[in-house]
Structure formats: C-alpha cells, structure tokens
C-alpha cells in the first residue's frame, strides 16, 4: 500500500526538508581536521575535484582542490555548500516502516528486520505473480560499481526484466543519437579542446547554471579569439555575451540545424574529403535539408533569418570548433532527431577527432556517463553490451556464472514501468537514487501509480518525496560515505573517495542490496566485500565491449587524475579523444575511426516533427522547464542546504513583458499556469530575456510547486526521454 501514511505537512515536519546551516564546528575557525580527503562533488556531471575536511567522522568543511586539472579548485555554489548535507538533521539513521498510526507516519525498525521484511515481500510477490512482478528503479548519481551491481541484482538475484534508471530523464537522447551516428556514446573530446576552438556552439545548455565550470573553458576560448554561438529560448548567463544568439522556439531545433546544414551546402562550406572517406549517408541528408531554406527555417524556428545566416557563416567557415548540447535539445519527443541534426553539421564540417575539433553532450548527473554504461538500463548489459544480442548475453552470462537463457530479456523504460505499475503488471518496486514523484512528468499520474504498489521499498539517505510512499525505507549511504568510480562529462573515470562512515544503522548501498539478496537466499554473485571487488568484476564484464574498462584500476586513476575509457589493457593510457585518424576500436578493427564495421560515421536524416503537444487557442503558451544554479535535480539534497535555498527559495515563472502585458501581469504578481494535466501558481518574474511565446519554470520542487504537475509524458520513440522542454499551457493572474 504505497500511499502516503500521513498528510504531507506531517511528513515534512518529521523528515524534512529542513535547512542545514553552518553551525558548531563548521563555524569554528581553529579546528584542525583529522584528515582532508581528495574526492569529487556529489552533484553534476562535471565532477569537480574537491577536498573534504573531516573531524571525528563528520565532514566539517571543504578546501579547493587546486591540483585537480579539470576544475583547478573552482566550484559552483552547490559544490561549496555540498558538505552541509552531512550531519544533517534529516539524515536517515535507522530503517523505517510505514505506520499510519504513528505520529510521523513511519516507525523506526531494526535494520535486519527491515531487510527480512523487504526480502519476504519480494519473495511473496514474485511467488504469486512471477519474477517480473517486481521492478527496480535506479539512478545515475550512483557510483559505477553500484550501477553495475543494480543491473546484476535485478537480472541475477531478482530475475526480473524490469529495471531502469533516472538517466532516462537525462542522457538517453544524446546516447541513442551518438550510437546511431558514431557507434559509441561518449563526449568525443576532452574539455581542453574547447580552449582554442574558432567557434563554440552551445545548443540547449544553460551552461552557466547547470555546468558552471564549463563557463571558464568557453570564456577562455573567447579570449583566444573564438566566437560563441548560443541556441536557447532564453538569454541565459552564457548567452548574455555570445557573439550570435539564436532564440529558438522550443521544439524546433531540428529545423534550425537542418537550415544551417542547407546553408553549408549552398555555400560549399563542407569538408568533402572527410565526408567521402569517413562517412556514409550524406546524399540522403543533403536531399532532405533542401526544403530548409533560410526563410522557412526562420519561419519555423522563430529565429531571425539574418541570425541563422550569421551562425551558418561562422560555423561553416571555422577551422576548428566545439559543438556541445544538453537537455535543451534532448528533452523532446524528437530528442534523438535533434541530436542527430547537430551531429550532421559536425560531420559535414569534418571537424571531429582532432585537437579543437570536437563534439560532446554536457552530462547532467554526477555519473550520467558511467551510470549509463554498465547495465542498469532496461536493454543493456555491462560494457555497453546489448541485452538482445546473443553473443553479448553469452559473454556476460559467463562473467556472472549463469546460463545465457537465465538472463531476462529487455524490460521497458522507467515511465513505462510506471504505466505497468498503474496497470497492475508490476506489483512491487525497489527504488534507489531516484525521486520520480518530483522528477517524472505529469506527476499526478506517478503519484497514482505509486499508490497502487502492493509493496514499495526505497533505499535513501533522506526521506525523499518518493520515499514517503514506501512501506520500508532502508538507510543508504551519502556520496562521502562510500568509495567507487564515476565517469565525468569527458568520459574520464575518476575516483570518489570515502571521507566518513555511514551513521547509525545506515550502510553503503551495495551492502544494503547484498543484504537483501542474502535474506532472499539468493546470494549467487552477490557476495562482494568492497567496491574494489565489484570494480574488478566490472572490468572483466566490460572487457572487449565498447565501454571497455578492463585496463583501468583504482591506482591508475589516482596516479593520473582519471583515465578516459575505452582503456582495454593495463598498459593502455586511456582515450581522451575519440575518432582520431588511424585510431583502433573493437568494432571497426582498424577499418576507420568510428565504431562501425566499416569505420565510418553515419549521417542520419533528421525529419522535423512539431512537439507532441503544440500550442492552440485553448492552451496558447509554451511551457519549458529547466534548472537554477543553486538547486540540483529533484532537490532531495539541495532543498535541505540552507544557503542554497536562500539563493533561490522557490520557483518563479519567467515571462516576457509583452506576454505579461497581454494578461495584465506585473513583476511579482502571482500567476497560475495550467496545462491539460495540472496547474501551478507562482510568482511572476517579468524579464525580456525569454521569448514572448514561452514561459519558464524550474523543476526542483515537489507538490504544488512542482513544474512536473504540468509537463507531458510524451516520449521520444527511440530514447524514451520525456518532453520536459515543451508543452502547452494557459496563464492567468492568480
């Protein structure tokens, strides 16, 4: 019965979010830390190096880690205040059992008893309804060891096909497009290739707020003479000083990139030699984009024709370039096409696989890269192997000591899992590192689905809005309470080091998972004694795959400040830059630099489709959603850190003065925005930095402040990413 045991405000009183601020030893100036631990930030995919100061098994502050090359001590405000998530009053230090008769809705229970109850519920549901009646939701903020273990736990221990993860909301459009075009899904270049690029294109990335450290790379490129082109419906801080700004109408990115490609062709700004020798499919794409004349592109994208021509001219004539994109073009029901259309202009330019000739997606989550490589996706096995490929199944079955036919078939994406819960097909769910009640679109549906579960268990360190629905909550580990690796934005595998032990009954997540396996009596392959042991198995499991980690060791990572995969052997230095001429990979085997048997990259026709829900008379305004710099994703951590909440206490509706005037809205007025799925009432922020046909709401908040009450669950047919960036709303003064 996974409905809320008590009213929301009772749960919030008891379990937070409460705000943690500097106090006690965190304010003392003379305290000598017991140790200073080199590790990384727990938040975004930049994974900035940071040193945590530890005293008496508590993190009391931080020191910039100047020697870590990616960020050289730099941090955003989330990184600066991240340490306040430790020693937090909301920290779960016991297991909890749902108990509507108690004052708080939950009663603390002994850890072992909680584990036994979870195992009994899994066993009961699977015995009654079959193994696939129990599902697993996981996350891309976990270390790669844990992500690997979650995939193995679902397939080997639970024998369920239903596992998916919150990278579904993040990286999958870019991933699918990269696989289609390059045969591999990873940023193609190290970030140092930004520094001397003639042109930097930033498409759908609020870089300054969501990947702040990247800003310094972009500014440095500009100091070196580079030009910056920003594509976004809002003038974000990275757009403010851009050379060319293209305020694309949300959902029209394919049209824009096709239009730019058409201008490249018209003006012969093409690398014919590269196209001829290293790609296939150009002719079909060239034929397709003929319809995207500058005039039509301007009409569809809402961007001035002159600006489109400027961008095409800069891009077309550049000698070097770095094109990066993020969720702005990926969160669409045609997110894969959006990414493919950007890759087409990269391939047509021939500027890839060389120094300062670069392409990459800006990863969102901390392990957004590593978390999508080793088998917690519904259709994937470790090393980026394909769960429907017999040879891949056989290899992984060998590593896991099971028969290939024992590995379940592909499951479904996380939103489809919610639909299956709603339909009664999935009866039980284990959730870790995911807050779907806040982060999934149309979250009234998500709440309804969660309420139908016969049994729901959550492993977390705080009682997230999703965990409030759980029958049993198991206290897991914070980032600083465990060790393991993650792959950051460049595909660089780096090491998270343990600073403190989990408090109270809390345990490292991998121990919690294995304790459940033990209580189920299904211990096969679930008896690791350390993250290192898991990593060593993962290395073997990834060996020979596209995401080959075999040559990476903890020691090698520490000695080199990270190693970029693929790294097939211990004497291999890793691969900071993909697709270098004459490079070898296990698919092309020397035929060419790209990961296809012929070694050639693929152009893909990207046909324009409007968003799933376009504006109409009834709902005439576009809603687009995104992030602010001081909050992170669903806010489970950052809504509990006082200084970060002070910086941007609650969501506002950004609205252009022209649109505001139409509805008689002044800055600071309360405004209601309503979609076909829900409504929200927030304070208006009237600014000229957003398109007048679009409003923006950041999505970090739950309940009545959640932007995802309004968003649509339309998904890309290939990547299954939801269309967070466009839906239709109407607005009125509240």
């Amino acid at each position: 019965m996974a409905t809320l045991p008590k009213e929301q405000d009772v749960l919030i009183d008891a379990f937070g979010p409460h705000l943690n601020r500097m106090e006690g030893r965190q304010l003392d100036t003379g305290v000598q830390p017991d140790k200073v631990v080199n590790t990384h930030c727990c938040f975004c995919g930049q994974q900035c190096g940071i040193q945590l100061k530890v005293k008496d098994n508590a993190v009391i502050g931080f020191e910039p880690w100047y020697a870590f090359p990616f960020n050289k001590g730099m941090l955003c405000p989330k990184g600066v205040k991240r340490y306040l998530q430790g020693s937090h009053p909301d920290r779960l230090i016991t297991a909890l059992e749902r108990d509507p008769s108690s004052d708080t809705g939950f009663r603390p229970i002994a850890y072992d008893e909680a584990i036994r109850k979870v195992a009994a519920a899994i066993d009961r549901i699977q015995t009654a309804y079959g193994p696939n009646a129990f599902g697993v939701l996981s996350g891309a903020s976990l270390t790669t060891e844990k992500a690997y273990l979650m995939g193995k736990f679902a397939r080997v221990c639970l024998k369920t096909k239903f596992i998916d993860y919150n990278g579904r909301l993040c990286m999958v459009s870019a991933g699918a497009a990269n696989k289609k075009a390059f045969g591999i899904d990873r940023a193609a270049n190290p970030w140092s290739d930004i520094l001397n690029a003639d042109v930097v294109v930033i498409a759908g990335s609020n870089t300054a707020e969501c990947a702040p450290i990247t800003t310094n790379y972009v500014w440095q490129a500009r100091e070196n003479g580079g030009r910056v082109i920003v594509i976004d419906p809002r003038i974000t801080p990275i757009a403010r000083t851009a050379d060319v700004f293209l305020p694309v109408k949300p959902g029209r990115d394919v049209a824009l990139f096709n239009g730019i490609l058409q201008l490249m062709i018209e003006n012969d700004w093409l690398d014919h030699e590269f196209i001829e020798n290293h790609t296939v499919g150009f002719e079909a794409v060239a034929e397709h984009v003929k319809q995207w004349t500058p005039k039509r592109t301007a009409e569809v994208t809402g961007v001035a024709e002159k600006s489109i021509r400027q961008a095409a001219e800069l891009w077309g004539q550049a000698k070097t370039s770095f094109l990066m994109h993020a969720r702005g073009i990926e969160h669409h029901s045609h997110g894969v096409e959006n990414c493919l259309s950007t890759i087409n202009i990269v391939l047509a330019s021939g500027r890839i696989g060389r120094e300062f000739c670069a392409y990459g997606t800006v990863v969102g989550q901390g392990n957004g890269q590593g978390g999508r490589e080793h088998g917690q996706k519904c259709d994937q096995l470790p090393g980026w192997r394909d769960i429907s490929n017999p040879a891949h199944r056989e290899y992984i079955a060998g590593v896991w000591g099971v028969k290939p036919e024992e590995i379940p078939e592909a499951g479904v994406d996380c939103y489809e899992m919610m639909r299956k819960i709603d339909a009664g097909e999935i009866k039980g769910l284990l959730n870790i590192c995911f807050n779907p009640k806040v982060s999934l679109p149309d979250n009234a549906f998500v709440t309804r689905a969660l309420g139908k579960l016969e049994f729901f268990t959550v492993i977390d360190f705080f009682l997230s809005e999703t965990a409030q629905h759980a029958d049993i909550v198991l206290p897991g580990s914070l980032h600083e309470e465990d060790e393991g690796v993650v792959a950051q934005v460049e595909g660089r595998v780096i090491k998270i080091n343990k600073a403190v032990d989990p408090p109270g009954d809390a345990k490292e997540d991998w121990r919690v998972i294995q304790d459940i396996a033990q209580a189920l009596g299904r211990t096969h392959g679930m008896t690791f004694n350390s993250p290192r042991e898991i990593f060593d198995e993962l290395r073997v499991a990834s060996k020979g795959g596209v995401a080959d980690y075999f040559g990476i060791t903890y020691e090698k990572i520490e000695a080199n400040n990270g190693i970029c995969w693929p790294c097939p052997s211990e004497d291999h230095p890793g691969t900071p830059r993909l697709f270098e001429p004459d490079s070898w990979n296990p698919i092309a085997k020397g035929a060419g630099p790209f990961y296809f048997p012929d070694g050639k990259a693929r152009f893909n026709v990207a046909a324009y489709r409007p968003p799933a829900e376009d504006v109409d008379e009834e709902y005439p305004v576009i809603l687009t959603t995104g992030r602010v710099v001081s909050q992170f994703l669903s806010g489970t951590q950052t809504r509990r850190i006082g200084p970060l909440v002070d910086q941007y206490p609650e969501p506002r509706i950004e609205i252009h003065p022209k649109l505001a005037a139409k509805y008689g809205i002044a800055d600071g007025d309360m405004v209601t925005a309503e979609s076909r799925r829900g409504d929200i009432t927030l304070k208006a922020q009237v600014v000229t930095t957003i398109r007048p046909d679009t409003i923006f709401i950041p999505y970090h908040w739950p309940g009545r402040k959640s932007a995802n009450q309004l968003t649509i669950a339309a998904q890309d047919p290939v990547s299954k990413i939801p269309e967070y960036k466009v839906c239709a709303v109407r607005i009125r003064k509240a």
Partner: protein
Amino acid sequence: MSVPAQFEFFVDPNRCIGCQSCVAACSECDTHKGHSMIHLQYVQRPISVQTVPVVCMHCDSPTCAEVCPADAIKRTDDGVVQTARKPRCIACNNCVLACPFGVPKMEVEYSLMMKCDMCYDRTSVGSKPMCASVCPSGALYYGTRDEIERARPRSEPVNKFRFGNQIITTKVNMMVPRDSTMQHIDGQHIDVTAAMHEEPVNPSGMLENVFDEIG
C-alpha cells in the same frame, strides 16, 4: 606574514554568471566564517542577466580608513585594507557611507564593520582567496599580472578610478576590454525579440553589431 607582492586580484564582470559561488565561499573563510563579505547583484534583472561581483578594492589611500574617527581600519604594508578592529570600531557607519565602492558592511549584531580582507588568513600564507579560488567563470581571479596578461589578451587590468574629483588607485584590478567597440548581445538591445523572426529588429541591436564585426 604578508601577501606576496607578485599576487594580484582581478575582477572581470564581463565573465560573471551570477552563480553566487563567491558569495557561498566567502562565508567559509576563517577570518569571518559564517559571514559573506562579497556583494553580487543584478544590474537590472528585468532586462538582463548581467551581474557584478564587488570585493574590497583595497585602495592605496582607503577612504574608509580616512573617515574612521576611531582609527579602527588599518592598511597593512602589503596593501590589504583590513576589516575594522573589534576593540576600536564604534559602529558609527562612517566607512559604510564613505566607501566609493560600497564595500563595508555594518554587522549590527556585533556592532562591528566587517568587509573583505582578501582572505588574509589564506593570502598571507601564500594561498588564494576563497572567492577567486572557486569562481567557475574566472570573473574573480587571483594570480600574477603576467598570468592574466597572457591568458586574457582581450582585456587590460585597470586600477585607477575617478569618483567626482577623487581619483582612487587600488590594489585590486578591474579587467577592461581593450577594444572599446566590442559588443555583447545585450550591449544595446537586451530583448530576446531582437533576434526573433516574428519581431521587428532594432536597427541598432545585436544583429548589426555581430554582423559588422564579422563582415
């Protein structure tokens, strides 16, 4: 212990992204832990996301010290203007009102003026100030003049400012674009609609600026 002469502080508002990392980190500094001394504000949020960080400029002849009736504010030989000394400060607010950059803050609960001391606990032992360490856009930078001139050829450091008849030279430098014709998209016309298809384009707006530059 003093701040080494070769290390200087540079502020480049052109680079600022308003993230408040400096504000967050300032309160981690051991000399004023829990209190942020840096100022970061939007210039005019309704029409731009431009923000400006303001640290103490550490004037060669600090007005704050000159107007202090209690002689509470000292400039050390390394050029750092220190925060008011607790035993002397009478919380009269003279410095707050007089500072041409608007830097000192009156902390009423302590009856004490507090301000940026360039993280003296860090800089006097060879480390970097918190704000300039963490700033993810390089809007705040602490290093040698040689480093900044090599890394940022488009701008030059300026440390002489005129306020009415008063000319002030400072230890902290502002980075000023060398090319005065350099335009940003919000240089003259900050409205998104200037780059939109459906909207009339302001002839003096961003498009022309960029196009002329390229042409």
